């Protein structure tokens, strides 16, 4: 068998391939395209570096041989122009194909559907409709919810937290956020953090956190 994989490496591989077919050195019917495809995949796997030119040429060469086979069967066009267009002026010889004795059915029957089956189908579809959950669409109505909010004096809160920072800070001015909390509940955490953010904005403290959700270090800024 011709080594198409080697042939595809040559720059003028297409002309060489057609010339070999013309001279009768290759019979497209002797080329096992399935085996060729398997070898081709093996070769690609073995290749240490990706070289797309060769694989592409192999695919093209295989497709040319396949088209030669199709052409010779007469399934695809018989006009010489088509052959010229694809095989560059070379018209492959069409072998004589023996007629195959085949069973020709005198009637191809597809079973008709009975009224009973139609009614059964209707029952099935109606049953399915009944079982289908009603689709609930998100309501476009705006829901009104009343939420009681305790009035909060932000200035008083900021001053209170600042006085706590001053009281608890070490000689170098550092204090931990967790130490500033009066109680470890959500509302106290939020209020203390809000107050500290105000103090940062006012330039009275700096905040440091070395990991997400970790401890916050508060540093007093000396005037």
């Amino acid at each position, binding site marked *: 068998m011709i080594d198409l994989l080697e042939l595809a490496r040559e720059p003028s591989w297409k002309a060489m391939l057609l010339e070999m077919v013309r001279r009768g050195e290759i019979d497209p019917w002797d080329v096992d395209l399935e085996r060729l495809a398997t070898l081709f995949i093996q070769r690609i796997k073995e290749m240490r570096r990706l070289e797309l030119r060769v694989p592409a040429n192999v695919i093209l060469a295989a497709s040319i041989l396949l088209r030669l086979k199709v052409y010779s069967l007469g399934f695809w066009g018989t006009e010489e122009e088509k052959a010229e267009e694809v095989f560059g002026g070379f018209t492959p010889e069409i072998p004589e194909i023996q007629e195959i004795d085949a069973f020709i059915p*005198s*009637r*191809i*029957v*597809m*079973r*008709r*559907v*009975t*009224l*009973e*089956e*139609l*009614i059964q*189908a*209707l029952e*099935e*579809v109606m049953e399915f*409709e009944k079982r289908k959950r009603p689709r609930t669409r998100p309501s476009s109505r705006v829901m009104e919810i009343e939420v009681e909010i305790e009035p909060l004096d932000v200035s008083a809160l900021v001053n209170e937290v600042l006085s706590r920072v001053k009281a608890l800070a070490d000689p170098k001015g550092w204090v931990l956020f967790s130490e500033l909390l009066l109680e470890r509940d959500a509302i106290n955490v939020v209020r203390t953090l809000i107050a500290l953010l105000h103090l940062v904005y006012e330039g009275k403290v700096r905040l440091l956190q070395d990991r997400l959700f970790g401890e916050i270090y508060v540093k007093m800024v000396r005037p």
Partner: protein
Amino acid sequence: MKLIEAALFIASRPLSIDELSNLCNSPREEVLKELRKLKKRYEDSAIEIVYNDEEAWMRLRDEYLKKVSHLAFKSQISRPVLRTLALIAKLQPIKRSEIAKMRGGRAYEHIKRLEELGLVKSEKKGRTVILRTTKRFELYFGKLEI
């Protein structure tokens, strides 16, 4: 009569009276007359001839079809398409979009297939499409109230 019989036998689908008329090179009235005779001839048979003023069909009688249907290659109408047809028959005239809502997106393919089979016809009304069963549907299943 033999040519009409042969045509109906080989087609195994409804053939239009015009088709038969062309085949036999006879006027429609003559074809309908022959069909009447043919129907009579098949009265005592597992096969029946059904026809209306548009089409004629040679087919197995229901009672025999049930017993031998497993021997045929496949059904003319697949189960999902049959369900869509059943809904159209029950709810006609019905909007195509309503059927699609009930049967899902594949309903459009089913309707196309049913139109190809000549069992359903669609009629455009403004921006909607209304579906109805056809005369062939009546020939296929008989006139029915479901």
